[in-house]
């Protein structure tokens, strides 16, 4: 996983709320067995429309997506995170995220930032007025800045540390193998196992 410290890029105003994972990547694109190549399915239905924001310069090269509330609702598909990342997005900003999507993003190294609705709207106006306006995201300082504005955001210490170190969860947990062994020893016997019944 790549380390995330700061990132400067083009921000894309996606003026929609409730962007669910079926919109981010429709189910027909999920029939793959690898982790790459999902960028072609990103917002597939909307991208047929030449007026869609990602079909316009310079937004099509965007790396920061600024969306309405409840981004990533719906199906738990992590392909949504991969599709955004495969396309080139590093950061998603929204007033509210669906839990599973946010968890998936943190695991994959995609930064999700919650900003209040009015700050999102001000950011939308700024990047619509000047599409090439650079937006800077610092995980170190926990700020989003553009023009003369610097907006603080919250991020729990643990997730921040993991993202900044680029650490993978499984490796971290496997360091706790002794605790897991001990837990299993003490585990109640009434729980079922999936071994075939004969």
């Amino acid at each position: 996983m790549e380390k995330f410290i700061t990132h400067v890029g083009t921000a894309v105003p996606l003026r929609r709320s409730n962007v669910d994972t079926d919109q981010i990547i429709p189910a027909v694109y999920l029939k793959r067995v690898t982790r790459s190549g999902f960028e072609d399915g990103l917002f597939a239905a909307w991208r047929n429309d030449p007026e869609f924001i990602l079909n316009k310069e310079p937004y099509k090269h965007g790396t920061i997506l600024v969306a309405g509330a409840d981004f990533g609702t719906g199906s738990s598909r992590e392909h949504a995170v991969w599709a955004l990342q495969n396309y080139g997005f590093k950061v998603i900003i929204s007033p509210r995220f669906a839990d599973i999507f946010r968890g998936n993003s943190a695991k994959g190294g995609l930064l999700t930032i919650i900003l209040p609705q009015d700050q999102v709207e001000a950011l939308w106006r700024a990047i619509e007025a000047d599409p090439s306006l650079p937006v800077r995201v610092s995980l170190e300082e926990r700020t989003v800045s553009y023009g003369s504005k610097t907006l603080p955001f919250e991020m729990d210490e643990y997730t921040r540390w993991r993202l900044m170190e680029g650490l993978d969860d499984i490796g971290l947990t496997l360091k706790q193998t002794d605790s897991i062994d001990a837990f299993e020893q003490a585990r109640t016997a009434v729980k079922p196992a999936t071994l075939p019944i004969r």
Partner: protein
Amino acid sequence: MGKTLAEKIWQEHVVRSVAGEPDLIYIDLHLIHEVTSAQAFDGLRLSGRKVRRPELTLATEDHNTPTQNIDLPIADPVSKLQVDTLRNNCAEFGVRIHSLGDIDQGIVHVVGPQLGLTQPGMTIVCGDSHTSTHGAFGALAFGIGTSEVEHVLATQTLPLVRPKTMAINVEGELQPGVTAKDVILAIIAQIGTGGGQGYVLEYRGSAIKALSMEARMTVCNMSIEAGARAGLISPDEKTFEYIKGKPHAPADWDAAVAYWNTLYTDADAKFDVEITLDANALAPFVTWGTNPGQGAPLNGEVPNPALIDDPEERGAAERALVYMDLTAGTPLKNIAIDTVFLGSCTNGRIEDLRSAAAILDGQKIASSLRMLVVPGSARVRLQAEAEGLDKIFMAAGAEWRNAGCSMCLGMNPDQLAPGERSASTSNRNFEGRQGKGGRTHLVSPLVAAATAIRGTLSSPADL
């Protein structure tokens, strides 16, 4: 102070707890399927890791398997690739799998309970957001993403942040024709698609107690549509009765029941949030929009977005009406339907099929529509056939299919055509969910059956 059921289960599964970090939680049962597991196994292989506890893992094929001609090779090359990949991964890592054609194949959330693997007090995860279904047994069950699938495969644990708890009290008695599906749609319409976010929902109250186990599964199933990862119902005699005699029911039954009887929310426990619904006031409910929170009683009308105060919700309602091609003020019962879909992990169990068949018995479906009946599992199909339900559906003009997710998400050939409108017993009415350009109205099995007969959204009372 006492504890809620969710807190009790959580506490029993903490492997490690350190301030400032998520708790490491032990997972009792890990269900997998072909769509969200391939990359997880791929990750294990790349890092040289093994499945820690294959005997706590179970695989089934459901999401994109065909529901017709299942004895032939899967025609869609990508679906075939995913299914073959799952089979190879299970063989390589030693995981039990129920493949297409197997008697225990079916939708993962129907298969777990019918095997008796879903039991009270467990932690259950699956790379599918409707894992909340298993909460009906008093298990803490939730959907996870593919990286988490890999994490559970490798460690049988997950680092998780303790959720808050919300009590949803449904008190009173449901009127005839009002089902578990109507209850949960009404709850979601009340609290919104984000209302449950960060919470485990515990459904309580006399109306919930009165529900059968399968109806409780319908309620818990859609917890995710209110934004909650998990829904719970305290186990009781009905729960134990349902598990009894199932293939994986505990050998030491008395010990298990003694343990299960400790699984309830203490009288002096405090929920973070508590809401109450009057069961007597509930009516058959349908959705008119493109998220499950956009629903209304069937006797009502398509709402007027101009009357919605919240600007975000108003915008969403306006866009939904355009997508759904609906006009504000139209009586919901005037909406003509092209396809009726009876199935899914929400309403594809035997009781759902029985209740719809009872309405369709001796009737014909409207000539203007098609109806697909897709049992949730192969065992549900066989049970229905033993009871002659398949004959009733086919005599009415419906199609009788093999088990799978089918038109719930349209990954297999069962899809809506662009512009086509469905009444669907599934759980998601998102844009394009059932096929590109398709329009979905979520309904109960009773409304599905009555709609099939009349051709427009209807309840059995309209027949």
